[in-house]
């Protein structure tokens, strides 16, 4: 048995190396100059020198892009969750079974429509609505795109709450809103946190719409900004690696802290949706 266990780890080793080594390679390269990257690719950096980071931070407004990403992502994630909680509650708990089936059916359409095929009409729409090149150009579609999956996950959880809980609330004289705010919301918080993290990561990482729906440099989000450094730092591999590290560090930090919740959320979302 022990030998089989050892074989397992041995089989997994190459895969784990392929997963981790590229990230490690980018990290060590971010402390090197071009010639050191090319001549001593395997070595640890000769000295820990943050010149690439200083270069990436001082010549490029990373702080500004970070704030843009944070703003757009937080607003759309929060709005999406509140809307999703409301509709999920109405569909699963309120007594309009036929109407609710229809609403749920319309939401299921999202599984068939690849978002990529909506890009061009969405671009035209954003322009027609006068949202082009404003933060709203991202906030509104991000909110809308987060709704179906959030509703599926929240609804799956709400279905598992026994009826007695809301009955007790109603006997105590709560209205629908009171029920939602005082009983359902606190009960659902753990699920909402999971949904929040999933949406937040998705919006934080979004590139195509952020690239298309904004034209001002000052409104750019992090992924768009880093891709633009790629052209700018064409010949400066170290600086490019540093900007990759800077922009991924927050996501990796969040992942390191919350990995269990994130992984569980993904599993729940995909299997129930």
């Amino acid at each position, binding site marked *: 048995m022990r030998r089989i266990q050892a074989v397992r780890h041995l089989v997994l080793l190459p895969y784990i190396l392929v997963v981790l080594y590229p990230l490690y390679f980018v990290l060590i*390269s971010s402390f090197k100059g071009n010639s050191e990257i090319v001549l001593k690719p395997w070595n640890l950096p000769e000295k820990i020198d943050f010149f690439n980071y200083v270069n990436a931070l001082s010549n490029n407004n990373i702080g500004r892009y970070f704030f843009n990403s944070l703003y757009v992502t937080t607003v759309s994630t929060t709005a999406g969750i509140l809307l999703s909680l409301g509709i999920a509650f109405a569909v699963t708990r309120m007594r309009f079974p036929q109407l609710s089936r229809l609403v749920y059916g319309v939401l299921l359409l999202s599984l068939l429509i690849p978002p990529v095929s909506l890009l*061009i009409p969405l671009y035209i729409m954003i322009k027609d609505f006068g949202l082009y090149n404003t933060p709203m150009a991202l906030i509104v579609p991000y909110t809308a795109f987060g709704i179906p999956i959030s509703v599926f996950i929240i609804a799956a959880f709400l279905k598992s709450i026994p009826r007695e809980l809301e009955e007790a609330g109603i006997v105590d004289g709560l209205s629908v809103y009171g029920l939602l705010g005082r009983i359902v919301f606190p009960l659902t918080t753990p699920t909402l946190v999971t949904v929040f993290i999933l949406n937040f990561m998705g919006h934080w990482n979004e590139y195509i719409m952020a690239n298309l729906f904004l034209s001002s440099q000052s409104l750019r989000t992090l992924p768009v900004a880093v891709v633009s450094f790629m052209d700018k730092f064409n010949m400066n591999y170290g600086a490019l690696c540093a900007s990759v590290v800077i922009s991924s560090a927050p996501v990796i930090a969040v992942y390191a802290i919350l990995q269990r919740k994130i992984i569980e959320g993904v599993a729940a979302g995909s*299997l129930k949706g």
Partner: protein
Amino acid sequence: MEKVMRNRLAYAILVIPALTLYITFYVAPLFSSLRYSVTSWNGINEAAFTGLDNFIGAFRDEKFLVSLKNNIYFVLFSVFVQIPFILFVSIVISGARRFLDFYKTTVFLPSVLSTAIVSIVWKFIYHPDAGLINQILRAVGLESWAIGWLGDERFAFLAILFANAWQWTGFYVVLVLAAIFGIPREMQEAAEIDGAVGWRKARYLTIPLIRPVILVTMLLSITGAMKALDIVLIMTAGGPFGSSEVMATYMYKQAYSMSKFGYANAISIIIFLFTCVLTLIFHLLTRRSEEEV
């Protein structure tokens, strides 16, 4: 009790905002795409109705056909290379007694990164001089194999497929692992008493029992393959010579570089229909095999 939960106004207030937003920005664009797809439109002048010309034109457009073929390769690669690999890795990990959490956390890591970042990282790794791949080849004395991977027509698209697989394999492994750990212990023990260990156990117990999640994984990776846009755009922009173009990048260029919005919308619709057809075929195939079982 009944009265509170039958409050029509409250139902409307809870449902309408979310549904309106979703329909306006998710469902309606599909219909407006359909409308523009039968026109010739440069985004400025009035759109002129041209019937099915855009669609007929697409299937005569050699560049579009290359992008369609690449999407098909993408799907085939996902289903026949990635999925078996995912199953293999998941089954091996699921039996490990130690480092289970380490494996789960590590393999999932690339899928929390932005696709834009993943594209940049891999562009650096494929770089002719500084890149990891060529550094390895030189280190083991295969100097002559070292090429600019993304600049070579034969390898560019394959290189993208690999980078995409690097990003998403762990995501699916985690899904499959969740299903494997959902198999009741008693069933596992019963199978082991019956002498099913190693690959026999995988074949006769694990794989049949996690069939539903395998199907979800396949469906997700098929639709994922149809969605691919940013990774191609950033790594090669469809090049060299259009060899790594996919339908989505071709659509993107027709709209934003060529200002052919009518044609671009027709390609959107083709992507949508293609995804629907694949999903449908997939459902028919899996339903039939379910009836056989």
